[in-house]
């Protein structure tokens, strides 16, 4: 069985304007829309396309989070994942612990590829894929904008500061996705009905017997310093004159 494991994180929806709670204990989540992390959605889309081209037999979606994360996994199944696993944890766990959980499932499911987003848009850590690859002692191809597969090798184009870098990695490997890898499909109503019949296993994090303890403590959150709205100038001449006066040009 040529399997692709896709890791998904439930996050505050991309379009929500995130606000820090007045007491600094976190951000406002009451009544806020939650979604699959957009980079992970791209990861799932890529896995589905590989399977649809005949490059894989099964797409397994896995997430770690509270019980409500089943909604995001149902959406993943509706997009086309074959089955899903929720590792239930009321507490958010840090990337090293996420990597250990994913490794446990990698060892059980022996995927040819693990694909996940290059970062989650909540903690913006950008760590999990690389950590999993290290623990698994397998290659990593991060920030992927193009992925070509042969039987034993993945050729990955990566978005790096200099431009586009292409590397070749032996399978199995970990791929993390950048924005331009693909555009995820929309879910159609019949797919939602079909997804209800697909298997979604729920496993308690504690039952895995892994060290998932936090190693970092978030002491507090504060809103960022706000830039003040400046002045409007009427034309190009005034703009250049102002910048010149300030010594900026």
């Amino acid at each position, binding site marked *: 069985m040529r399997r692709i494991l896709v890791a998904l994180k439930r996050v505050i929806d991309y379009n929500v304007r*995130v606000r820090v709670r007045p007491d600094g204990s976190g*951000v406002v989540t009451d009544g806020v829309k939650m979604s699959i992390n957009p980079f992970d959605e791209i990861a799932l889309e890529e896995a589905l396309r590989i399977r649809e081209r005949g490059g894989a037999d099964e797409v397994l979606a896995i997430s770690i989070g509270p019980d409500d994360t089943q909604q995001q996994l149902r959406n993943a199944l509706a997009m086309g994942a074959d089955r899903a696993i929720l590792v239930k944890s009321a507490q958010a766990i840090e990337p*090293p612990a996420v*990597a250990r959980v994913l490794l446990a499932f990698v060892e059980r499911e022996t995927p040819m590829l693990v694909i996940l987003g290059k970062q989650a848009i909540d903690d*913006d*850590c*950008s*760590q999990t*894929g*690389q*950590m*999993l*690859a*290290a*623990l698994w*002692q*397998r*290659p*990593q191809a*991060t*920030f992927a*904008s193009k992925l070509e597969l042969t039987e034993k090798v993945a050729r990955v184009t990566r*978005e*790096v*500061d*200099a*431009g*586009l*870098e*292409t*590397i*070749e*990695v*032996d399978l199995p490997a970990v791929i993390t996705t950048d*924005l*331009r890898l693909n555009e995820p499909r929309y879910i159609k109503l019949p797919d939602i009905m079909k997804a209800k019949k697909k298997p979604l296993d729920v496993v308690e994090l504690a039952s895995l017997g892994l060290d998932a303890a936090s*190693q*970092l*403590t*978030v*002491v*507090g*959150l*504060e*809103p*960022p310093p706000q*830039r003040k*709205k*400046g*002045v*409007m*100038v009427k*034309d*190009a*001449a005034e*703009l*250049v004159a102002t*910048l010149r006066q300030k010594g*900026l*040009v």
Partner: protein
Amino acid sequence: MNRILIVAEHLDGKLNAAVAKCVSCASAIPDAEIDVAVLAIDGSAVAAAAAGIAGVKRVLLVKNAANEPALAAVLAPQVAELAKGCSHVFGPSTTFGKDLMPRVAALLDAPQLSDVMAVESATRFKRPVYAGNAIATVESAAGRQVVATVRVASFQPAAAGGPAPVETVAVAAELPSHTRFVSVTAARSDRPDLQTAARVVSGGRALGSKENFALIQGLADRLGAAIGASRAAVDAGYAPNELQVGQTGKIIAPELYVAIGISGAIQHLTGIKDARTIVAINKDAEAPIFEVADYGLVGDLFSLIPEIEKQL
């Protein structure tokens, strides 16, 4: 004593300017002793440049033919070996550092702090979360080794100093062959580097086409500026990916940032909030970019760009 190891990013024999900013960040840690690791084929020029940064105690040079072009899977076991006994391991928050440092952290069984923007103590740091909509103060356990990437836009480069001694060291680490470099396509230009430029001119979707996007080149030339782009402009194919400024692109802190035809999505603003002065030019007076711009100009950018150029 806090022993801090900084991993040097370099390309074509040149030390990346982000390294001197990592040194600034590390120097903010009390009682810091800073080593810079240069992993290269030869690396003598890079090591000499790193040795000339004030605050650097030693440069550790690891010569290995496998070290260039840089591959995280190859570098990580070597860095992990060098990091033994260090309290902190830092790398720049560039794609090089973001790729490498978590792999190092996992090998060291250490937690990582991504995008450190301020140092409060040896164990307490600030970093942005939610695309910069919140700043988290994070504490690591005392005595626990910490890996971090340094948000380069938050730090000034350390001054010139030294020279610190360069020690060529051998590292006993097994290097994988499962990852191979194929190629890199990078636009070569005479413009300043986007990440370190003092002035940046960026274009957005309102430019409307790849041909029109070239209009901002003239203005950038006049200003001696680097060119940037919004995600929308990159997605539309007007500009290459390496020019993207924002949450998932480059985070920059130029003296002058000129946003042309960029509406100012929160993800874009994340990338420019440390700019000293922001100028926005947009035909939509309601565009969110004007909420953060120091100077705003509403109008048709196709007539305004040449006018501004003429005035300069």
